[in-house]
């Protein structure tokens, strides 16, 4: 039992941290001031993403055959943690969740086209799971794919297709058997090139960032873009969820926010003399944040370490999701409380504290407790898989 990073792991952490400073160029920071380009997609983003590919930073966890470095999950987490900390809109779902599934299941030609492109930092993939009437109950989705010779005719609508406005493909879940005995058994996965006829995309502006509604109207998709067996899509969706979650909640970025607020409070005069940080209630909030953050770090490390030993226990994966998402929301509030009114001043407005990062994180944070699997579903899983309690109804 030794819960600290090894010398090598610390070296990797510093290497990524330094490298990412070179990725976050002034041009990129300028580009990210534009709302629609906060999550990537602009020319400078593309340039830096491609540079990361050329420098060998994409696909660290992939197998050697795919050109990866077969890094352990712990190393992969260290990489992810630092990339998130840097603020770069790295497309983790593309590189960590979807591409390995495509590599294992797609036809050779498509694998070459997509996996090779991702590796070079030239391809991004949006996720096409949710629909207007299929959110938490994802298996009830209704986007249809019907066979027509060696093509599929696809019709339907997806919702919350983040990156859909600039991604090269949508990783699409569609219903191929409307009469399946159980609804999750009739789903098949496809890769839809976004330049194909019949695809369209409308912006959806949220409390936080831009996302999209995507439309699929009589798309004729060659069968080579089907991934995996027909009607066997569900396990391709669920198989990657744990890996996906490992990049959803990381410690470094929120730890930077905590440190930033501590520094601000230590420099900022309090009205009655002394500094803000000397006020008891400020100390109380900062101590609560630190105490909760420590567990975020330990949960992330433990999950990554466990995945290197074997499969992750379902209950523990759900604990990580519930704890982190609910704590992040609390953390944003407790740090904003310390700033008071100044915490409401938006990025780029004069007087914004920490460049308004916390004001923005709060906006984005609203999705955490339901995104990536609603916390109610996670709690059901904890009760069943962790404590052998019966299914709720």
């Amino acid at each position, binding site marked *: 039992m030794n*819960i600290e990073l090894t010398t090598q792991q610390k070296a990797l952490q510093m290497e990524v941290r330094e490298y990412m400073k070179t990725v976050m160029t002034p041009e990129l920071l300028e580009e990210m001031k534009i709302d629609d380009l906060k999550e990537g997609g602009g020319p400078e983003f593309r340039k830096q993403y491609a540079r990361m590919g050329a420098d060998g930073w994409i696909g660290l966890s992939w197998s050697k055959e795919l050109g990866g470095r077969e890094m352990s999950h712990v190393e992969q987490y260290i990489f992810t943690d630092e990339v998130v900390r840097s603020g770069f809109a790295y497309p983790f779902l593309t590189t960590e969740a979807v591409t390995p599934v495509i590599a294992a299941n797609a036809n050779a030609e498509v694998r070459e086209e997509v996996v090779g492109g991702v590796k070079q930092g030239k391809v991004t993939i949006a996720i096409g799971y949710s629909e207007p009437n299929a959110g938490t109950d994802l298996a009830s989705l209704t986007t249809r794919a019907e066979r027509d010779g060696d093509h599929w005719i696809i019709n339907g609508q997806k919702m919350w297709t983040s990156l859909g406005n600039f991604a090269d493909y949508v990783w699409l879940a569609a219903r191929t058997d409307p009469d399946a005995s159980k609804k999750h058994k009739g789903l098949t996965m496809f890769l839809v090139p976004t330049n194909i006829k019949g695809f369209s995309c409308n912006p959806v502006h949220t409390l936080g960032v831009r996302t999209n509604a995507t439309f699929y109207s009589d798309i004729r998709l060659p069968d080579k873009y089907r991934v995996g067996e027909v009607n066997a899509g569900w396990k391709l969706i669920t198989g990657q969820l744990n890996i996906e979650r490992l990049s959803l909640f990381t410690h470094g970025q929120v730890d930077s926010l905590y440190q930033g607020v501590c520094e601000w409070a230590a420099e900022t005069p309090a009205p009655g003399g002394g*500094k803000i940080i000397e006020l008891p209630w400020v100390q109380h909030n900062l101590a609560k944040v630190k*105490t909760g953050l420590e*567990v975020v770090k330990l949960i992330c490390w*433990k999950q990554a370490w466990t995945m290197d030993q074997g499969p992750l226990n379902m209950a523990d994966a759900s604990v990580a999701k519930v704890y982190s998402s609910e704590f992040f929301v609390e953390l944003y509030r407790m740090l904003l409380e310390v700033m008071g009114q100044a915490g409401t001043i938006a990025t780029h407005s004069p007087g914004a504290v920490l460049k308004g990062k916390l004001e923005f994180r709060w906006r984005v944070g609203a999705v955490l407790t339901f995104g990536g699997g609603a916390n109610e579903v996670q*709690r059901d899983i904890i009760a069943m898989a962790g404590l052998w*309690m019966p299914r709720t109804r």
Partner: protein
Amino acid sequence: MDFTISEELKSAQQLAQQILGDFTSVDQLKVIEKQAERMDTALWRALAEAGLLGLDIPEGNGGIGLGFYSLTMLCEEVGRTVASVPVIPVLVSAAGTLRRFGSDAQKDHWLSAIASGATLVTAALEEYNNDDPSMPGSSAQKMDGGYSISGTKICVSQAQSAARILVSARAGDDLVVALVDPRAAGVTLNAQLVTTGETRHELVMNKVQVPTADIIVTGREATEAMEWALQATRTALSAMAVGVCDKMMRITGSYTSEREQFGRALATFQAVSHRVADCYKDVECLRLVTQQAASLLDQGRPADEAVLMAKIWCGDVTHRVSQASQHCHGGTGVDRDYVLFRYCELARQIELTAGSSARLMGELGQDICAEYLAKAG
């Protein structure tokens, strides 16, 4: 980074589980609970025979020397079975301090006797409104052949049966850590009934003469000794809380899965199962911070903040899991013929021992303030 628990430690844990399981049926617990100063001497003997009292005592002193981490695992198992054995005051606070800060003669004299179960040495770290033994209100005066100690310590476990009680006292600017004989002249023991239902004692010392042989350490080293004792005690309490809370949560999971109302198991209501799921989450969080603190102490690495955070989580989680367990049981949970009340009482006792969450949160906040003010220059 490595969360692996060695095979050696796992074997010790399994042995502890087996022995503790043999001695903690409800009937056995009830017999021990009738005692005034609670102590399952037969169980203590069995643990001694298995070598488990000497987990953190060096082989040269009659122990098996597996280290501090293994001792926290024993504390967790004791919590899981609510056994009446003073593992924390005797093995962590007293023996742990003796082995690290005592003289060779003191170690030779006391440690093997503790490991064999022949002798109890307990510790009295707390005073009224003061849980920090490195800043005691008790005073010590140097005199020929030792110190004269006066002051009051509270809620002392095994005060009557122990051969010695480890205390700290202030001698001017200096700190003294000493072993006080509860039978010495000037010592008064006043019974104190505490939340777990056991009788502990207020230890009143009025110019108690402590011979040099029983002075463990003085000066700067004495402060280090008491800082270590406090950190080790808080970590061990957190480990015991992991056992207590893990068990309470499992009892509640089973109970609500079987108990039917409105024609269905209570656990099939999300409002109920989610409350238990939150306990699971809480226990996992507590386990991680506790493991971190215990492994740092085990390696002799700085653990100040890790221990503070562990005990804060300990106080919060014992409270939350205990209340949720009681609530989900309805009336059954409060019935003394059912097992749960013992866990709830022990949870509250642990929560308020060696610093509550609110008090430690205040301390951590002050530490953060000092750290960042220093950085800001």
